[in-house]
């Protein structure tokens, strides 16, 4: 699942006459708070409180029985110095992200470009490509387990048709991550659809002007389409990053993190620690570390994005 849109700069506040400014501003602030209060209350109760509780638990030792015992930073120290599975799961997640994110971007965007053309049947294709991302759960995971089977799986059968020897997808700690990349790419239709919306939102006057100047298809892509959809790309990137760090179900069901912990994603490590071993304090520390990593990487991506993302500022009516 990816979300979508680029950030636009917020609308500038309405101009006001100087004399009335503070009164009006205060009233508007109050109005803002009232409007946002349902969110605030719910957010506080259902999201923030558990989040803070989980954050605090990271400094305790608690196995679900009795009361948590304060241990300060020792969970974090242990995590970084004495837990090889921590580093292994980080490595697995990082390698997966490095493989998957660029492919997903290129594939999603490329498909969106293809589907943008007003050729007949495009709606059918959009539906077809989007359909896999609607599915989820155990059933799909079991399906993939069979598809990737070395001796009986469809994938090796297809490779065999072109003369490639069977690949030990789920039995080799080398091939298991590419297998997961393929599984995730099956759902590329979700981000494709969002890219499509972004591309279709580019004002056509720009293309018309370019054509009059004799621009080629490649040049139009590079100088119009990509810059104008860069906010969308950025957000799919960030949300894809967040999603990558939370991959869990397929690894849990198909490989249990194997072979030899080769597919031991961070979220799986977290689940095992929190729910199988019930080491809740330690797991909370892991969650905090994950959150910090995602936040740092996202911030870095945002900073980097300043060099290539173009915000068109205030926008006109839709469509």
């Amino acid at each position: 699942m990816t979300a979508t849109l680029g950030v636009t700069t917020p609308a500038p506040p309405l101009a006001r006459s100087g004399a009335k400014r503070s009164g009006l501003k205060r009233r508007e602030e109050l109005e803002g708070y009232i409007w946002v209060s349902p969110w605030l209350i719910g957010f506080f109760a259902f999201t923030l409180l558990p989040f803070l509780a989980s954050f605090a638990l990271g400094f305790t030792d608690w196995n679900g029985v009795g009361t948590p015992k304060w241990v300060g930073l020792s969970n974090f120290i242990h995590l970084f110095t004495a837990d090889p599975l921590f580093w292994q799961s980080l490595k697995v997640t990082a390698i997966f992200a490095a493989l998957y994110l660029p492919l997903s971007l290129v594939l999603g965007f490329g498909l969106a470009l293809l589907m943008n053309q007003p050729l007949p049947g495009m709606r059918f294709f959009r539906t077809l490509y989007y359909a896999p991302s609607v599915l989820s759960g155990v059933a799909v995971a079991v399906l993939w387990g069979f598809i990737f089977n070395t001796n009986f799986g469809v994938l090796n059968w297809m490779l065999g048709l072109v003369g490639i020897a069977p690949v030990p997808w789920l039995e080799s700690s080398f091939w298991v991550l590419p297998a997961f990349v393929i599984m995730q790419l099956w759902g590329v239709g979700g981000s494709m659809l969002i890219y499509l919306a972004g591309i279709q939102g580019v004002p056509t006057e720009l293309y018309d002007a370019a054509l009059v100047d004799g621009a080629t298809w490649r040049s139009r892509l590079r100088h119009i389409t990509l810059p104008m959809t860069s906010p969308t790309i950025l957000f799919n990137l960030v949300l894809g990053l967040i999603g990558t760090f939370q991959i869990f179900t397929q690894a849990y069901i198909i490989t249990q993190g194997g072979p030899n912990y080769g597919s031991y994603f961070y979220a799986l490590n977290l689940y095992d620690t929190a729910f199988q071993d019930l080491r809740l304090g330690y797991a909370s520390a892991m969650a905090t570390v994950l959150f910090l990593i995602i936040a740092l990487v996202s911030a870095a991506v945002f900073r980097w994005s300043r060099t290539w993302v173009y915000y068109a500022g205030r926008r006109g009516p839709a469509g």
Partner: protein
Amino acid sequence: MNRREFLKYSAAAAGLAAAAPLLGSSEAFASARRVSSSTSASLSLLLDHTSLEVSRFQHAVNLFEKANPGITVSVENIADAAAFYTKINTEGVGHTLPDVWYVRTFDVAYDALKGWTEPLNSYIAKTPGFDVNDFFPALRSQMAYGGKIYTLPWNLSDMVIFINKTLFQKAGVAIPSPDWTWDDFASTASALKAKLSSHQYAGDVNNLLADGYWVLEGVIAGNGGALLSPDFKQATTSAPANVDLLNFFVSLHTKGYMPTPGTYPAGVDPFVAGLEAMAANGSWVIATYPAEIAKSFEWELLPLPKGSTGKRGTGVAGGGFGVASTSRNKEAAFMLADWLTNTSSLNYVVSDYLDSLPSRQSSMPTFLKTAANVKYAPGGMANVVEETKTALPIAYPPYVIPLDTALTNRIPPIFTGSTVTKQMSALAGDIDTMIKEYYP
């Protein structure tokens, strides 16, 4: 097959789809033991079973309610074992566990350490006619932790060698006797391999290595080895007895007697497909194989081979019912757990050939009678009973869950490039981490 898949099976295989006759009247159930009908309570029961088994339990529960008019029982079933454990763990921490739930013997130590289950010794003492020794000896060591009983076993599983008689006849090899050893296994496999075709396997014991600690420890114990010290506080994975036996299994693979683990995807059974002359699998499939194999070939059962100690390396595991320590009606909850696991209940269950072996020896005659009457039933059931009676009393450490995850990760590479010694020392490292967690 790994622990997750085993957990699916250990709740006992769903067999025939046809509705079974509802055997057992209220009186037959009640006559097993005097039941007090004066308690009044509202109980919750959580199961981890197939829909067919759930309907059997529901029947038993209905009879229980009739015999105890003041008690109502609400039944919930979560068939997927992983989801079941996620729920149990969450409820355990949240102090909302159901009054009675399915506690497997390898959960006993873990749940006891967490204080989730109620010790049942005092309730057992108060119940006239309750015979703990009726449970199979190997189960008795697993239903308790630290001397206190925490679960009343309901069924039992162990590992059996399945023999494809038709392939043996075709190869002209004699079927070994039930007193065979691992050396006999190897020589039989060698004789078979000479006569079998290239995609058939002589002796596949992958399931002995892939089904988790409870199987592996049993197999190794037959050879005098052990992965853990008796008090669970030390890893003894690199002991020579362990290494020798595992290398023996590696040699079976190298000689081509068995496929590499993971060759067949989940749900695919090469023995049923007629591809294997000898295959190790759980006793739970005895119930489902007849319908699946039907007439395609003849088959029978042999117990596991004896190890170098002269004993069979058979471990057991069982499911059972425990009472929550936070239950508000512990007396009534115990009555329910007892009802579900008394001889009559078990007789009812095994009268339909639906299930694994019953946990009580007193229910074995009914089980054997049912087994003999099933269409395409295999020979050798008596071997299985004998094996179960002499199974080794192995208990489970409280860290059995992460231990199984470690085994799933560390064992398969011995067939795909790594050495037994290397993997065993990696496993020791994993176990040391767990021990530090659970025994700080």
